[in-house]
């Protein structure tokens, strides 16, 4: 006969306001199998936990039900308390009367009745709980970092400096990400390359870091501490061991007019190329889409149409016939740092977006986006840092900066704020004024969001010292008018329409997650929000964890982030990984399926539906060693405890611990509605 203690929490007023907690305790007291019931203001507080511990001893409790908040909130807390009181922690369960009751109902009678039902249900479940031992699993102390931008680099370096192996993969030819494209950085205006490049080199040369560029995650199996990751190394056509980065191949390549991704289309590159001079590693890739030889091969030409780079390469590092290769890595923890892309608002629009025909982007050459301006302002850029407009290479005397293009626009773009634009617009206005003293910089904004250390001072400086003209109002239309770009705006402060004849317009387009992040998230079985940003496990308390144990998130793939935030987040993720690696084994809930070999008929339905391949077939032998049949066996290390196998078992022979049929039926029966 079980002796269960029920502890009803007021949660201050949170529960007590709508649920008559005393009544709940009173009602449950006489429920069969309940030995003790009480209520208290804060069960999770120290006195509250002590009350639980003492009750366990005093009333010889065999099970504990905490009627309080969601198990996701405090189950761990109370299970630890029971453990300390000598009660197997898996004999403790939470009855959620806050999130699922007091917070969502107003009628006190209804809410109280429901709270009693909930408590009763869990009591019935706990009656059938069994003492279980946590599963201990080994931890592979090797981290995978996905994405070689500043966030990925930071996380990789922190973990590597912590003495652990790191595999860093980057889908582009070089690490560095968007930060390597930036000219100067707010709020200090220090040169982006100057602070980033050393970190890139450090990551490349770090003894604990294995770098794979031009590579992507193909497949992820396993679970926290024990992932098996398959990495696709895309065919580079250049042997990374032989290449010495001399650059002769690029010089020899005849296809020289390919818009450079790194230069945001403002500069050209060759078909075999390193994205930028400071690239790490300094090893080119061959862009087969634009390569003359491959174009020829796709056309089915008998002999190769080109081969100049191969001829030019004295190291013989170039091989036109390499194919994608796959490497498997054993990984203990994963950091996702895939970063962002700028919302391109040209004529072709992604599904469900209306776009901005009124802004003429993609049709008026002197209407550019923020990254393109970074390249114009960058000393290493196509204009060597001179602000010259794309159409005619002239120095613009009036430049208009438009905030919130595609951001804070539920109807035509993204409904969220892209967070960094206010700051980089101020920076752009400054950089422009510093280079073109007589020039006129006009910024159309809705609100200036400059919350951050030294941020507001910075944006004020743009206005007060560099005389950027800030006009509060959205722009309605932008179009080419002879040599000028007409901008129709409105000044909501002076209540006038404003028409500006600009020479160049810079659109601060929205920050969006990298394309393909959804597929990656599904490969990692982590969740993402409706905008494609990775969901953190808890918006406040678990900001760098995801809903899959062992997978962490850093930087702009989780939400629009600037450099300081991304770096901070990356270090946080790194720290999380290292605390995971601090132990040789980790504890896991024994929520795993167990097969009853006596009743199993070996139909293997369970194996067919198991997503983890945790179920294998085992032979049953007679005493004299004759194989007389086979049954299913669940590998507890691999089983994740979804229980799908149990639901499809025809002979009721597989049982998921912590969610047994017995437990579930007890709950259902506890909700017996026949009065």
């Amino acid at each position, binding site marked *: 006969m079980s002796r269960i203690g029920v502890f009803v929490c007021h949660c201050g007023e949170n529960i007590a306001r709508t649920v008559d907690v005393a009544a709940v305790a009173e009602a449950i007291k006489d429920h069969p199998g309940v030995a003790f019931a009480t209520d208290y203001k804060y069960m999770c507080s120290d006195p509250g936990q002590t009350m639980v511990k003492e009750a366990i001893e005093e009333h010889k409790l065999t099970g504990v039900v905490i009627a309080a908040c969601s198990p996701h909130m405090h189950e761990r807390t109370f299970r630890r308390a029971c453990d300390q009181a000598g009660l197997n922690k898996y004999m403790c369960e939470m009855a959620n009367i806050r999130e699922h009751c007091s917070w969502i109902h107003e009628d006190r009678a209804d809410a109280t009745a429901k709270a009693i039902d909930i408590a009763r249900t869990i009591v019935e479940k706990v009656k059938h709980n069994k003492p279980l031992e946590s599963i201990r699993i080994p931890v592979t102390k090797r981290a995978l970092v996905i994405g070689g931008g500043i966030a990925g680099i930071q996380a990789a370096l922190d973990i590597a400096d912590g003495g652990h192996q790191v595999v860093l993969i980057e889908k582009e030819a070089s690490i560095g990400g968007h930060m390597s494209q930036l000219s100067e950085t707010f709020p200090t205006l220090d040169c982006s390359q100057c602070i980033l490049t050393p970190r890139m080199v450090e990551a490349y040369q770090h003894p604990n870091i294995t770098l794979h560029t031009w590579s992507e995650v193909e497949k992820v199996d396993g679970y926290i501490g024990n992932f098996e990751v398959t990495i696709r190394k895309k065919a580079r056509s250049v042997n990374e061991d032989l290449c010495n980065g001399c650059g002769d191949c690029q010089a020899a390549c005849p296809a020289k007019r390919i818009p450079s991704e790194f230069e945001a289309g403002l500069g050209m590159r060759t078909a075999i190329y390193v994205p930028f001079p400071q690239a790490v590693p300094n090893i080119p890739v061959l862009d087969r889409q634009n390569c003359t030889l491959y174009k020829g091969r796709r056309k089915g030409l008998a002999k190769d149409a080109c081969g100049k780079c191969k001829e030019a390469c004295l190291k013989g590092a170039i091989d036109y016939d390499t194919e994608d290769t796959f490497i498997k890595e054993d990984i203990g923890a994963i950091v996702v740092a895939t970063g962002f892309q700028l919302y391109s608002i040209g004529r072709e629009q992604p599904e469900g977006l209306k776009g901005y025909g*009124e802004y003429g982007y993609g049709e008026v050459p002197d209407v550019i986006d923020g990254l393109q301006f970074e390249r114009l302002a960058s000393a290493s850029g196509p204009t060597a840092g001179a602000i010259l407009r794309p159409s005619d290479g002239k120095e613009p005397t009036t430049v208009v900066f438009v905030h*919130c293009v595609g951001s*804070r*626009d*539920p*109807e*035509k*773009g993204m409904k969220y704020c892209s967070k960094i634009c206010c700051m980089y617009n101020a920076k752009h206005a400054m950089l422009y004024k510093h280079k073109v003293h007589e020039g006129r910089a006009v910024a159309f904004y*809705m609100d200036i969001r400059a919350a951050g250390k030294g941020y507001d001072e910075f944006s004020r400086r743009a206005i007060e010292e560099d005389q950027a003209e800030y006009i*509060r*109002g*959205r*722009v*309605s*239309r932008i179009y080419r008018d002879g040599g000028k770009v007409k901008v*129709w*705006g*409105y*000044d*909501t402060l002076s*209540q006038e*329409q*404003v028409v500006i004849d600009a020479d160049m317009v810079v659109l601060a387009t929205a920050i969006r997650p990298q394309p393909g992040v959804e597929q990656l998230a599904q490969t990692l079985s982590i969740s993402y929000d409706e905008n494609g940003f990775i969901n953190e496990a808890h918006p406040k308390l678990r900001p760098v964890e995801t809903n899959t144990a062992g997978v962490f998130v850093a930087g702009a793939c989780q939400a629009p982030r600037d450099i300081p935030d991304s770096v901070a987040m990356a270090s946080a993720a790194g720290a999380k990984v290292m605390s995971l690696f601090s132990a040789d084994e980790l504890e896991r809930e024994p929520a795993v399926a167990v097969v009853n070999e006596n009743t199993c008929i070996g139909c293997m339905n369970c194996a067919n539906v198991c997503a983890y391949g945790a179920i294998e077939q085992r032979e049953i032998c007679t005493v004299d060693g004759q194989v007389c049949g086979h049954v299913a066996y669940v590998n507890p290390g691999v089983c994740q405890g979804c229980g799908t196998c149990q639901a499809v078992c025809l002979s009721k022979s597989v049982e998921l611990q912590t969610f047994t049929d017995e437990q579930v039926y007890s709950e259902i029966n506890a909700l017996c509605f026949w009065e």
Partner: protein
Amino acid sequence: MSAHPRTLAAEIHDATGVNAATCYQCGKCSAGCPMASESDLRPHNVMRLVIQDRRDKALSDQSIWLCLTCETCSARCPNACDPARVIDALREMSLDAGVADLPRTIGAFHKAFLEQIRSNGRLHEMGMVMEYKLRSGELMKDVANAPGMLSRGKLSLRADRIDGVDEIKRIFEKCGVTP
């Protein structure tokens, strides 16, 4: 406001489905409004009045009658506030409340126009122009064009009245509209 237990915003919501509270006053509507230079209230000012429940000003200001319903504001609004539709609704309310301060000419135009439709089922421009001039008092305006229109067969002196003119009258009655 005691005469109106419900807020203007609530009534606008019923009439148009627009939640005025979603307007964050970015001014994009007014930036592209072809009549902004001629009217005191620009689209986003009108939205503001609705948000602030300033019924009297919203209904009695002349600006709402200067809207061309060209829909540019609505087409570019980031929050689907549909100012054009809201202004339409305000005009209707303004007429019902009898506080419409529509420029005589424009009011005369709409009245003349609808009068034509109600009595002929179709617009008889010549008749409309006459009607309009009588109502607006702008007797001599555009007369210069009239001969040209006639000679080009663009104005017919005879109204073509449809058979179903009674249907039209009934539609006006059922909508409670009397020009």
